[in-house]
């Protein structure tokens, strides 16, 4: 065979050329994402103008000009308003939040007893975090502790009146304590109650079905305020003379019933999404109704509607702020109540307090929604179309 001279053939691969300058680096990114076309460029200019108009003012107000500590309103008021700030000053009055922080958290819970709600909060976090992290084992025991033992322990700790703990009336509860406890109980009650209502609505027994439909549609058709009105005004009328209900308990009943009706519709969506074969398969195995629902249908259905369930939780968490209407003081209520404190009344007080409250609400709701997105991805078994 003839020998070929292969010396002109490359033996190693040519290195990849870098991408053309027009599609790489910051410049290309800007061209693609900010000034792709004339319309885009105009939009970008408008956007930048908006950001420049708003952002520096917000940062200035919330951080640079803000007053972080102070004994009373003078630190947050201009000279003309009777304070020490120069005229035209505008900044957040975090000193107000700082001074009232204990109230915002616990309401008028006695100061020397505040270790009790703090202890409950620590227990709650200690039980909730392992519940939320999927890798931690013993979920069953954890759930029993969180949903059965913790409420009883918290009840004893918060109310007191036994084991040598002084009694604290619920009328002295307030702030974040009320917001969180109302929503926790609401969540713990509304999910099982909503599931039962959803099952009732799909039941073959006409009377049960009708009652469930009437309850769900009536509650969903009216605002929560009306429900709260109903519970706070009508419940005392429904009971024999002399029997009275705690206001906190009334709010709890109202919020739970309201959330349960919405929860029922969410769960019903999940029940309807389960193919008929699953129901029939359970029947053919000879399972009874509760076995069929508890072992086969509900685990799949609830998993399908996790986003809806969490949305309802978030909605309920936000809705607890409405108890202010029946003169209970949750976080928002306490913040608003403190606006009238003459010691702190300045034009900046209301804004600062409300933004603080908004931040707290936002943290909880945003956290819940992010966690639900994470769970949704984790539990996704490819059922969804």
């Amino acid at each position, binding site marked *: 065979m003839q020998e070929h001279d292969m010396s002109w053939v490359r033996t190693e691969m040519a290195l990849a050329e870098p991408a053309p300058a027009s599609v790489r680096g910051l410049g290309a990114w800007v061209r693609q994402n900010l000034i792709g076309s004339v319309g885009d460029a105009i939009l970008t200019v408008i956007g930048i103008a908006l950001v420049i108009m708003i952002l520096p003012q917000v940062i200035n107000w919330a951080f640079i000009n803000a007053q972080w500590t102070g004994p009373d309103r003078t630190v947050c008021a201009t000279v003309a308003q009777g304070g020490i700030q120069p005229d035209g000053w505008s900044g957040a009055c975090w000193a107000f939040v700082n001074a009232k922080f204990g109230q915002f958290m616990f309401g008028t819970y006695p100061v020397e007893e505040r270790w009790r709600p703090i202890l409950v909060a620590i227990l709650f976090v200690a039980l909730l975090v392992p519940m939320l992290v999927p890798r931690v084992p013993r979920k069953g025991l954890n759930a029993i502790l969180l949903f059965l033992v913790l409420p009883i322990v918290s009840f004893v700790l918060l109310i007191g009146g036994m084991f040598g703990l002084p009694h604290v009336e619920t009328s002295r509860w307030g702030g974040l304590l009320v917001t969180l406890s109302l929503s926790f109980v609401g969540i713990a009650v509304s999910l099982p109650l909503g599931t039962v209502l959803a099952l009732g609505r799909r039941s073959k027994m006409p009377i049960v079905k009708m009652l469930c439909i009437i309850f769900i549609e009536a509650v969903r058709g009216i605002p929560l305020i009306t429900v709260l009105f109903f519970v706070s005004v009508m419940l005392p009328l429904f009971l024999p003379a002399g029997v009275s209900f705690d206001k906190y308990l009334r709010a709890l009943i109202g919020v739970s019933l309201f959330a349960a009706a919405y929860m029922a519709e969410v769960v019903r969506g999940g029940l309807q999404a389960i193919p008929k074969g699953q129901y029939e398969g359970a029947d053919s195995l000879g399972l009874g109704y509760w076995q069929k629902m508890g072992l086969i249908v509900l685990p799949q259905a609830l998993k399908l509607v996790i986003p809806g369930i969490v949305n309802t939780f978030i909605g309920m968490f936000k809705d607890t702020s409405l108890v202010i209407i029946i003169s209970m003081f949750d976080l928002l209520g306490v913040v*608003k109540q403190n606006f009238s404190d003459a010691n702190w009344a300045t034009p900046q007080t209301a804004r600062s307090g409300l933004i603080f409250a908004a931040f707290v609400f936002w943290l909880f709701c945003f956290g819940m929604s992010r966690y639900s997105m994470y769970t949704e991805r984790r539990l996704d078994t490819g059922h969804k179309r």
Partner: protein
Amino acid sequence: MASQEVLREEPSRGSFINDPRVRGIFYQAVVVIVLVVSVWWIVQNVIDNLQRLHIASGFGFLNGRAGFDISDTPIAYTSDSTYGRAIIVGLINTIIVAVAGIITATLIGFIVGIGRLSKNWLISKICTVYVEIFRNIPPLLVIFFWYSGVLAVLPAPRDSYNLPFGSYLNQRGFYFPRPVWGEGSWLILVAFVVGIAMAWFVARKARQRQMATGQQFPVFWTSVALIVGLPLLAYALSGFPLSFDFPKQSTFNLTGGFQVKPEFLSLYLALSCYTAAFIAEIVRAGIRGVSKGQTEAAAALGLRSGSILRLVVVPQAMRIVIPPLTSQYLNLTKNSSLAIAIGYPDLTATAGTVLNQTGQAVEGVLIMMVAYLILSLVTSAVMNVVNARMALVER
């Protein structure tokens, strides 16, 4: 044979306790008995309590003198009017704020929702921040923020902000020129109605012609010309009867013009901002729900990008958008009951005052529930009609 004998026997039905039908009837009987007993117990208690507290029952109280003032009265109302009229004033206020809020929230929501899908990085981030902020804080807080955080700290009437078109903004609200309808201005209204009717007719004819011949007709601009042009023509013909009553600045207050009170303003702004965040998410989901193949197929047919959006993407997206949009409208209407927290006299506020004054809690709460249920049903009905027109026509 013994086994044959057994086979020929009546099939065993088991105990009737295990028959699902018998069980079903039994359970329902238990439910009915429990329900009847508890309702009877509650009714007895209510009757006892009402007698003990000397509270009358029935709806006769609606004709009594109300004796309280209402700050925003769209229809004539004084403290001498009846309780019934007070409740109607509240109902109208609820409807006003709900309709205004729904329109604004839809506008903001569509803009933000489409903005979030924009290829422009900055715009989509701004829209995302907007949605994530407003979705995660309670509507009541937003209302308070507008009311005590923004509107209450505006300057006093003496130093009002001057806005374009002779309008003013100060702590007592927003003032704008009020149109004064002079002699013969009914002609303008008639022209407006005729314009709308003609525009509808033209659109129908144009569509028929396009279906038959394929020729297009500039429907949009003709409609604009008809709806705007005809009233303008009527305005000129009837001798310019429309004038404006401008708000004037005096020493302590603004006089004249039309005043929008801060209560209404903060409720309206808060409900719009809050609901818009949810509508934006619905719109985004709707547009993303239209598969890319649809856009590409439309492009392959030679449609321009505007036509693709109008004829292919939006009609399909609307099908996904409308049902959840309806429930957002219902939520907004129900959330308008938060008005009571800042003293805007909506249905809940006025009915609540009536309830407190007369003590007739049962009737008061019943009226509220029925009114909100009717509002919800009407909204649902309207949206169902829209939905039916949008729905996929299948064989």
